[in-house]
Structure formats: C-alpha cells, structure tokens
C-alpha cells in the first residue's frame, strides 16, 4: 500500500512541466465548475432539479488517473460525472447548460447532472444506478478488445458501489476475458450518508478495499488519492497492464469528498440546497471534516508545484482566474440558453 507516502517527487521527472501544469489546470477547472454548481443552489434556486453530485476532493484522483490516458481511451464514471468530461475537453458551457436543463445542454436537457455523455470524446454515458456502469465499462473494453483498437477503459466507481453484485460479477468476467480496463475504486469514505466502515467488511476489519482484488486474482493496490502523481504512478502501471493484454487491475484511490453527497432531497415545490458534509451534518464530527480539508488536494498540489519551481504564485493565480472566468461564462451561457420545447420529450426513444 502506498497509502501514506508523501508527495511523489520521484514521479515528477516522468512528467514534463507542461503536463504537471496541465494536471493542475484540470484540477482547478473541476473545482471551479463544482463551486459554480454548488453556488447555483443559492443563486438560482430551482434551476437545477433532481440530484446533483460534486467531485470536489476527487480532483487529484481523477486528473492523476486521466493523465495516463491515450487520446482514444474510454472514460466511464458514475452519476458523479462533472469532472471527467471537463478533462476530456467537453465544453463547460454545454455541461452547465445540461445541469440547468437547457436546450443547449450536452444532452439537450434530457440527462441532467447524473447522465452527462459526450461519446465523441470517448465518454459514452453514465448510470445513476449504483454499480451498473462498472459492467458498461467492461463492455467498452470488450469493444476495444474485439476490434483490437488498442483502447483501454478507465472505470470509476465508489466505495459503496463495490458492494453491489455488478461490481463482483464484472471484475471476474473482466479478469477472465482479460479485458483492457482499469477499475478505480474511489474510496471517498462515504456511500451517501454511511461511513465505509459501516458497510464494507474489509473496512470494518481495518483492511484496504483493494483486497477485493484477490477474489479475481488480479492486482489490487491502494493509493493516496489526494496526490495526483502517486495516482498517476499506480494507474500508469495498471494502464500498461491493460494495454499489453494482461487484463484488469483494481486501484483503490483514497480521498475525501469535500461536499455533501448531493443536494438535499426535498419535496417540490420546496427548493433544494446543498447541505453540510455528512461528517458534520449526520455524525457531528467536525474534526474529521477539518482534517480532510487540510488534505485538500488542490492547495497541496499547488504548493508542491511552487516548491518545485514549476509554477509561480502569480502563474497559479492566473490559472485559477482563467478557470473561474471559464465557469462564470458557462453559467452565463446556461442561463441564456432557452428551455427545451416540451414536444421534444418523445424524441430519442428509439434509434
């Protein structure tokens, strides 16, 4: 387990300055997008409906993972899917418009926050039902294998999802068929309001969740998901394994979700909003949350880049500002976009 290694200086040499800055840029873009989404619940109550899940806290894990990606590899996250398309180059405007249920949304207002899709960027869609997309990801890997395209699949899912039958069935099948897929178990310590130790037998016993890999005779490793470079290192090995036909790996990436699971579930017409994180709201454990905040991957990685002289403070500020402006524009775009025509609702049912 690489769980408590310090920031992976040794890896920086593999990645050029541009790539390191790219990683930071994507991380801050994700954070800004999510901050804008969260603010929407205050600033434009009712604009976002249903259930919205944020990726703040997951930035290092997601971007560290996707930094190993080749241009045509598939990316298959869960309903917590704002971060990934941003990294793939999907328009933040279209994404925000989708969350606002607008005509110019990425999915024309049909999907919303949980169901973003941008197949042209190898992001074919997500599921809101826990665990099910793990099988879809293996299916994309099957396509790559059958067609011999050299693509691999990055499959993201939660600690909670690793208790769903679909997870186990898929990992066995992927191992058996040696499918080119990297399984990234994002252990953000909670499945909705339940701490992982209350619902996972490994966690209850104090064992890493990556131990589940033994059930499939595939490599299983746990990594500090707050450090994009440590994540990069482990995922790169798993990606290499997948690319060379050796099959899947399971990577448990440990980090902490910095916002609540999702917006509050209220009954219409009562407006919804973003509650406090469950550590505070449910468990009354402010210390846990404060400690997690102290491990926030973004300032941590920024400090690393500054100490390594890769980024000056003012350069960093410029990147932060740029991300903020990009997301301001995305919100403006979403607000300006019209709602869909009602009659559209019966379109797209059949191909």
């Amino acid at each position, binding site marked *: 387990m690489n769980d408590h290694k310090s920031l992976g200086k040794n890896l920086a040499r593999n990645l050029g300055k541009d790539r390191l800055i790219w990683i930071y840029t994507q991380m801050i873009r994700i954070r800004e997008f999510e901050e804008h989404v969260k603010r929407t619940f205050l600033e434009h109550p009712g604009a976002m409906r*249903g259930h919205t899940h944020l990726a703040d806290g997951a930035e290092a894990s997601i971007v560290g993972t996707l930094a190993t990606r080749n241009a045509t590899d598939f990316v298959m996250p869960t309903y917590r899917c704002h971060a990934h398309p941003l990294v793939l180059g999907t328009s933040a405007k279209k994404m925000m418009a989708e969350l606002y249920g607008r005509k110019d949304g990425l999915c024309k207002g049909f*999907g919303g926050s949980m169901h973003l899709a941008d197949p042209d960027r190898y992001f074919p869609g997500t599921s809101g039902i826990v665990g099910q997309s793990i099988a879809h990801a293996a299916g994309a890997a099957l396509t790559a294998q059958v067609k011999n395209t050299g693509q691999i699949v990055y499959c993201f899912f939660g600690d909670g999802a690793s208790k769903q039958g679909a997870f186990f069935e898929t990992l066995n099948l992927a191992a058996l068929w040696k499918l080119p897929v990297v399984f990234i178990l994002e252990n953000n310590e909670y499945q909705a309001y339940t701490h992982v130790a209350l*619902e996972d037998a490994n966690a209850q016993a104090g064992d890493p969740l990556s131990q589940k890999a033994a059930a499939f005779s595939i490599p299983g490793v746990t990594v500090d998901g707050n450090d994009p470079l440590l994540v990069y290192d482990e995922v790169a090995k798993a990606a290499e394994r997948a690319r060379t036909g050796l099959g899947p790996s399971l990577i448990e990436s440990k980090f902490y979700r910095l916002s609540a699971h999702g917006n509050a579930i209220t009954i*219409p017409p009562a407006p919804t909003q973003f509650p406090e994180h469950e550590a505070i709201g449910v468990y009354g454990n402010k210390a846990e949350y404060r400690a997690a905040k102290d491990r926030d991957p973004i300032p941590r990685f920024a400090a690393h880049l500054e100490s390594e002289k890769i980024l000056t403070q003012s350069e960093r500020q410029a990147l932060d500002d740029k991300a903020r402006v990009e997301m301001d524009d995305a919100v403006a775009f979403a607000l300006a976009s019209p709602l869909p025509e*009602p009659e559209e609702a019966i379109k797209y049912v059949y191909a």
Partner: protein
Amino acid sequence: MSREMMYGEAMAVSITEEMQRDANVIFYGQNMAMTERDPMLKMFGRNRVRIAPISETAEIGIAVGAAITGLRPIVELWMSEFMLVAMDQIINEAPRLRYMSGGQVKVPLVLKAGYGFAAGWAGQHSNCIYHTMMGIPGLKVALPSTPADAKGLMTAAIRDDNPVVYLHHYMLTLDTGDVPEGEYIVPFGVADIKRAGNDVTIVATGWMVKKSLAAAEQLTREGISAEVIDPRTLAPLDVETIVKSVKKTGRLVLVDQAPRQSSAAAVIAAEVAEKGFEHLSAPIVMVTALDASVPYSEPLESYLLPNEDKISDAVRSVVGEHARMRA
C-alpha cells in the same frame, strides 16, 4: 378520534407501532439509523434496526430467508427502481417459496420504497415500475395516496403473512391529512371511493389520485360528476368496486403515471373490458405518461406526465361519446 399527520410521518408511525407490538418485526436498509441518536435505533436497538450496504439482492434475499424462519422484516429501499437489481428475489423468490413448498412456509416481509420522483430525477429514478410486480401470484403491492392509507396499509402490510411491496409516492411525502388514532388497518384488496360521482369513473393511484380529484373538481363546473376510485392495493386488485362504479357511470378513465403499455391502468382496463363490458357506454380511456423515459428538464418532464388537464380532456371525450351515443 383522528389526528393530522403527514403522509411520510404516517408510515413511520405505523412502523414504530408495529415494532413495539411485535418483536419479530425488524427494519433495515441503506443510509438509515447511522448514529446512536437515531430515534428508531434508540427505541429498538441495533439488533432490530440495521444499516445495510448497497446490496439490494442480499438485503431482500436476507429478508426472504429471515421471513421463512420466523422474522417479519421491513426493508427500506428508498426508491423503487433500486429494486430492479434484485428483481429475482421480489418476483421469483419471495412470492414462490411458499407455493413451491406446498404451503409449508410463509414469507411475511415488507419492501418499502418511494416512487414517482417527478422532480428532475431523470431517466433512471423517476419511473413507475409497479407493473413488473403486479399480478405475480403470491406478491402483494400497496400504493397509498393519503396519510390515512399510508398508515393503514403499512400496518396491514407488516401484519400480512405474505411478501408485500409497499410503494409510497415521493410527491405526497409532505401532504397532510387526518389519520385515525390508535391501531388503524386498511385491508388489502379494498378500493376506496375518494369522491362519489355519477357520470364517469376515474381510477387512479398515488399522486394521480390527487390530480384526478382536482380534475373532478374542475369538471363539476361543467356539470360533469366524476367518481374517483383509488384501488389502494394493485395486488390484490379490487375489480368489483370498480365494476360496480362503472355500472353506475357507464364510463371509465384510468390515470397512471407509467407509460400506457407498462401501466396498472392497462390491467384494470382489461379487467373491466371483460367483467364490466355490458355497463360501458364509451371506450375505456387511459391517461398515462407518454412513451418515453422520464426526461430531466422541467418542460420535457411536464409534457410527458399526466396532469389535470389531460385527465379532464379524457373525461370530456368519454362523456361526449356517451352523449353522442345517447343522442
């Protein structure tokens, strides 16, 4: 004696009362009773109130195994569509074990789930899937539309010796209404006439009852008197009360939040087309969701779902037809 209660509250009160009454009743599910401050947990302890992982097949399968060996489990599933990952346990295990054993075991359990999340939950969380569980021999399905029914049907469900799927409508959670004090049981298979009328029978469940009552009110102004019936349980289904009403009104409009070919409405229509045919003076009309998954954006979602106007239009069409036939 009665007291005003919210729909959501009424279910919870029933569960608490039944757990006090019968030590064999246990309650578990995901994301519930997380801390020692939880009132249910305080009252009944960790042995009877438990947290489950995201493992619906195991959660429901364990309930089945517990039921055939002497417990009466209630499983909190939150949203009915999460049951789809465990459908074999619901359709092919719970209702069949007794039959296959030649009547040797019984399977008393309650699967509790919300449904009908018409609030932007989009394609996978907002659908109505009761048609999958209706008509399965051995399985009962309850869909309360009022706080009183929410309580009375929950109590009946917990005391029933058969597996019961108890589906409560998300949009009704905060609705208030009078609930009789003390023990209150709504027997399964007994439809409730929520509003009496003479010109047309409207049958609806859950949220659609509210919309149908609103439409009926609206129609009064046009001189149309609509009877609104809520079957309350889809299995068993009280066909008799519906046919009796149709005998009086001669016309039937069915309102259902599901798409028409996967609705309870279709099953009710079929029953009446066989058993009440002679009383019908107009086509049976179904007002259902349009044939699409539920979209995210508000105007799309609204367009898709049944509403007061669509119900009123349907009623007018059959009343008109009736008039035409009489003329």
